[in-house]
């Protein structure tokens, strides 16, 4: 037993050295997986910040302003700056070189308004551009307010109560707290972290199994008097360590990511501190262990690294698609989600981002599932090892 343990450590040490010397792969994983999440978050924050600043600018573009002094008066009373759009605004909107929606006022606006003829005011925008859409909603509200003001004034002149116009009042009461709302934007964070863990394990898992077969180093390895399970556990330990290292780096990469968030609103909503990072690790470390074993089990059946890459695509697909059950929110959060690897992890990490705590089953069920997957994976690799060495 003591010798087997020594063999486990020997293999672990060698495989770790080997994996960490594969600088190019490590660099690729670090850049693509660990940096991608914070960068994407930064991108979203840039978008939100630009929407916010646009809203703060309180600008509105009106074509044919001279036709509507009443509207101009209203807009200026709402502290909006009224601007004239470029002459070819339609073409520019299509090209997205000009993104603000344009209010088009008809020539007979004032006379029609005075006659009570409901003149038609157009809001021209390109809905293919998301930023333009947000601005359109704002301007619709603004014009709606203008319409209501006119109506109220007209009714007041005739001695009618304002309530006639508003037989019912609508009040919104949003039960989501700040963090919950933020998950609509930060919901992609668990996905990025899980992909980082997956890609962290991938190369090492393939290299220690299919790679070893391809190099022809598996057969001589088995001609050492070490127990086969000890060899496999050592290999798995190294793969899981690399994957866990990536998990740690990836979880903590969102801490500095938060400091550079360009939108104050988003920074306030995305509360990702040390507590969240540590809870992420509670979820991710067992997942990294299980994923390593599963990838190794898939790869040991393949003769070459390339073949193993093709086979592992299935694992990658499943890992990236299962969390989508949450995104599509089919029937909300169900108890069975906790029993499905990848889905459970994504569910739990979403909870962390919402600022909710775990209860015991939420921690234990995924842990047990991951543990079982690890044991089955390692057992399968150990069983296949001799057969794999010979072919």
């Amino acid at each position, binding site marked *: 037993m003591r010798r087997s343990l*020594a063999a486990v450590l020997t293999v672990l040490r060698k495989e770790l*050295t080997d994996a960490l010397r594969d600088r190019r792969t490590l660099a690729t994983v670090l850049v693509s997986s660990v940096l991608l999440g914070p960068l994407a978050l930064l991108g979203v924050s840039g978008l939100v910040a630009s929407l916010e600043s646009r809203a703060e600018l309180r600008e509105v573009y009106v074509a044919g302003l001279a036709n509507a002094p009443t509207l101009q008066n209203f807009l200026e009373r709402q502290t909006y700056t009224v601007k004239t759009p470029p002459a070819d605004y339609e073409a520019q909107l299509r090209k997205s070189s000009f993104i603000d929606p344009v209010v088009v006022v008809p020539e007979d606006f004032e006379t029609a308004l005075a006659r009570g003829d409901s003149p038609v005011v157009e809001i021209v925008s390109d809905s293919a551009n998301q930023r333009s859409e947000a601005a359109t909603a704002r301007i619709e509200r603004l014009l709606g307010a203008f319409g209501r003001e006119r109506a109220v004034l007209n009714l007041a002149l005739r001695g009618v109560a304002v309530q006639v116009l508003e037989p019912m009042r609508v009040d919104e009461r949003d039960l989501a707290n700040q963090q919950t709302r933020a998950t609509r934007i930060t919901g992609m964070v668990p996905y990025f972290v899980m992909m980082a863990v997956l890609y962290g394990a991938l190369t090492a898992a393939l290299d220690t199994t299919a790679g070893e077969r391809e190099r022809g180093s598996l057969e001589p390895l088995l001609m*050492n008097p*070490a127990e086969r399970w000890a060899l496999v556990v050592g290999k798995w330990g190294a793969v899981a360590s690399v994957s866990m290292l990536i998990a740690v780096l990836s979880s903590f990469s969102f801490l500095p990511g938060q400091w550079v968030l360009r939108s104050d609103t988003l920074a306030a909503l995305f509360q990702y501190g040390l507590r969240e990072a540590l809870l992420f690790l509670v979820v991710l470390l067992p997942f990294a262990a299980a994923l390593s074993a599963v990838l190794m089990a898939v790869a040991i059946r393949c003769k070459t690294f390339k073949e193993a890459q093709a086979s592992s695509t299935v694992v990658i697909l499943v890992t990236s698609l299962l969390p989508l059950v949450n995104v599509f929110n089919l029937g909300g959060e169900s108890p069975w989600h906790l029993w499905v690897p990848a889905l459970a992890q994504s569910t739990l990490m979403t909870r962390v981002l919402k600022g909710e705590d775990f209860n015991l089953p939420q921690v234990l069920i995924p842990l047990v599932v991951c543990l079982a997957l690890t044991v089955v994976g390692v057992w399968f690799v150990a069983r296949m090892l001799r057969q794999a060495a010979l072919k």
Partner: protein
Amino acid sequence: MIEVSGVARSFVAAAPGKRGLGALLGFGGKRGAARVIHAVRDVSFSAPGGHITGLLGPNGAGKTTTLRMLAGLITPEAGRMSVDGIDVVARPREVLARMGVLSDSRGLYPRLTARENIVYYGALQGMERDAADARAQDLARMFDMTALLDRRTEGFSQGERMKTALARALVHDPANIVLDEPTNGLDVLATRALRESLRWLRTPAGGAKCIVFSTHIMQEVERLCDSVVVVADGRTVASGSVAELLERTGQSDFEEAFVQLAFAPAPVDTGTIKAAPA
């Protein structure tokens, strides 16, 4: 001391029409007739210490399968194998601790240095790191590869690879050395160097090792082996020293003798072979 008597092993070739998902789940496709390949039918030899025994046979004769059985990678269906009196099937790990095997596939880890490759196997053999490291140094001197020792094995030539793999197999200073076609892919100089090393390992100063090596090259056997075991079609068809085999076949050229022994038209009567001096 390596003793092999009457080992046999057959393989079932995958039946056509049952592959992939169907084979995995146990359904699908029509099953073709499974083909049984008798890789080894009846191989016997005895290799004493301080002695180089050559396993000579044409391609596909069953040499590699026999050596793999000896290393415990394949379980024989019949026969007995023992190394220093220890049964290979019953106690494979003890056998591997007494045996250095240079197998048919001799892949190295390209991102590790030659030294790290050797020390890794030493550690797996249960050696202390320092002892393994010192041993790597000694072996490097013996195989004239000291300059290579701290280079990564990526980009090594065939000869350099073979030396590293051989040093790796011998790191634990085993009393028994098994080499599967060690001269494959080596140039003249590397082959000569290997021959010199093996001759030295045979001497009492080199440890009087029991060396078994398989080959299909006559010259190797003639120049190096104390005794030859001719294997053909999974059977031991003759054994003895080169001189004895020449005498028995009445040939002066060893190649002619080998062809006569290995490709005899009529099935060889095993009785006469067993009676031949071992």
